[in-house]
């Protein structure tokens, strides 16, 4: 057992706020979320904090710990130096509701803007068939728990004025999962560039560093989408090939 000090931001947009220090005894094996619960129990029962599964699977307890977006339930106390004061804040990118809770509803609005899965017709026996090799790639994207740490970490959403033009890494992952899906028939490349703003991403990979599910957001989702945008809009050779062999651009990305 050791004594640890926390600096936790307390406040709300109407009344403002500031950091408040709390000191508690920490037991072996505790995570930051355990400590916040201990602070609620001992010092501040009105401290607002969102959590649910305590297993890194619900994505509810996202916050910034020592300046880095992280799941508080997966941040072990033994990763900090002995005697280090631990600073805990709400996410910077989204509006604060109170204390450590944010309004992340903007993300759900972004999600609604993406056209849903549009599968090709079923096989004559009424089944949809996919080969495992084709599905492996998009299954990685299904690991997303929508914690929005990548959205918080992304400097475009976090610090830039043009943020409203960029959907953010989470939704680039969703677009990639649809565009690369072996059954999907919808052409989303124009949407990727014009509505979701793929060109704004300058691939500094912070989103990938933030992902608690270790989804390789940059290399496997954003860059492949940017390359598909290059195919469509910026590569004269690909343009020439489409002219020589006209057809549905969606069919161009598939082989049989």
């Amino acid at each position, binding site marked *: 057992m050791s004594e640890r000090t926390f600096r936790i931001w307390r406040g709300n947009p109407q009344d403002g706020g500031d950091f408040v220090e709390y000191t508690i005894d920490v037991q072996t094996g505790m995570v930051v979320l355990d400590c916040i619960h201990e602070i609620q129990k001992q010092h501040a029962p009105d401290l607002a904090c969102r959590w649910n599964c305590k297993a890194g699977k619900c994505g509810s307890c996202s916050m910034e710990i020592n300046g880095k977006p992280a799941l508080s339930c997966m941040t072990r106390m033994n990763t900090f130096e002995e005697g280090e004061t631990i600073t805990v804040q709400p996410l910077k990118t989204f509006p*604060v509701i109170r204390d450590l809770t944010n309004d992340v509803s903007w993300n759900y609005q972004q999600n609604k803007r993406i056209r849903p899965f549009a599968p090709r017709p079923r096989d004559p026996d009424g089944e949809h068939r996919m080969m495992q090799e084709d599905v492996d790639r998009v299954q990685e994207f299904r690991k997303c728990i929508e914690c929005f740490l990548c959205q918080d970490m992304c400097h475009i959403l976090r610090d830039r004025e043009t943020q409203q033009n960029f959907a953010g890494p989470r939704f680039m992952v969703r677009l990639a999962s649809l565009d690369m899906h072996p059954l999907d028939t919808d052409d989303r490349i124009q949407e990727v560039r014009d509505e979701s703003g793929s060109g704004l991403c300058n691939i500094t990979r912070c989103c990938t560093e933030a992902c608690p599910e270790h989804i390789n957001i940059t290399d496997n989702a954003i860059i492949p989408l940017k390359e598909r945008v290059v195919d469509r809009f910026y590569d004269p050779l690909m343009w020439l090939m489409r002219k020589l062999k006209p057809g549905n651009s969606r069919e161009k990305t598939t082989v049989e």
Partner: protein
Amino acid sequence: MTTTTSATESRFGPRQGQKPQGGHVSAPLTTQRSDPWQIGPLLTLLGFGSFVVYVTFRAFQGLDYYSAPYLSPFYSPLVYANPEYYSGSPTFHALLGNLPAEALTMWQQMIAWLPLALPLSPAFFILIFPASFRGTCYYYRKAYYRSVVGSPAGCTVCPIAQGTYQGETRLLLIQNLHRYAMYFAVAFIFILGYDGWLSLWMPVDAQGASWVAGGGDPATYQFGFGVGSVVMMLNVVFLGGYTFGCHSWRHMIGGRLNRFASSSGETGLSYAVWKMTSWLNERHMLFAWVSLFWVMFTDFYIWAVCNGWITDLNSWSQTAAIGQ
């Protein structure tokens, strides 16, 4: 604390120039991280800067790039040669043979205003290709956006430039040329591979003596190998690992497809190559730095052998001749 009111602010957080909610900072290069985040960008800047200084010096030097049978990768493929003017230029190795006297005269007139006699280095015709490939590489873009322009310098570190952010739109649409740079980079792997093969063949004259610059084409070639051959072949391996792990290559070779498998469930060559490329792609940063260092070392090794600073151990029972 500022109370947010506009539509944008209610959807997002506070904007730059306003006091952030949640105790966050917003001034350039500020962060609430407690780890030494500056080390990564500084090391990148140091590594990059060292390479740029070295390669610029060696390209402008225009000397000591061939020590039989080794040709520096900075000068490969050798476009032209001028043994009378530059030391270490093998005519038989040059694509266009000797540099025409008129071209040399024209160049000297062009640079007459310079205080230094700048040589018309064959490297000028070569380095634009690897430079454009690395300059538009997805890994290096991250590296220099972070370490050179601070956009941002580190994750959750506030960006240096506080103006309107355009990302890779408008002027930086030029980054989309990476695909074309990749085509040339792939060609260079084969060219450097051929140089690796040539590094096993020592040029000799009719008497069996080592070839020297200005002595015309060699009479024959003697098979063997030296430390320089190993250095040059490793260069091809590392550059190949970097080039064939390229994101654009990965896309063109199979990533653009949504279905690798046929309706019978069989996957073809595209899938196999895409899988191998994906393995390299996961190590793209590693190969980017190893190949950057090794191509520099390969050139330095040949430069050092040219000047007699080191002796190339080889099977030709003689030290590699300095192409003077």
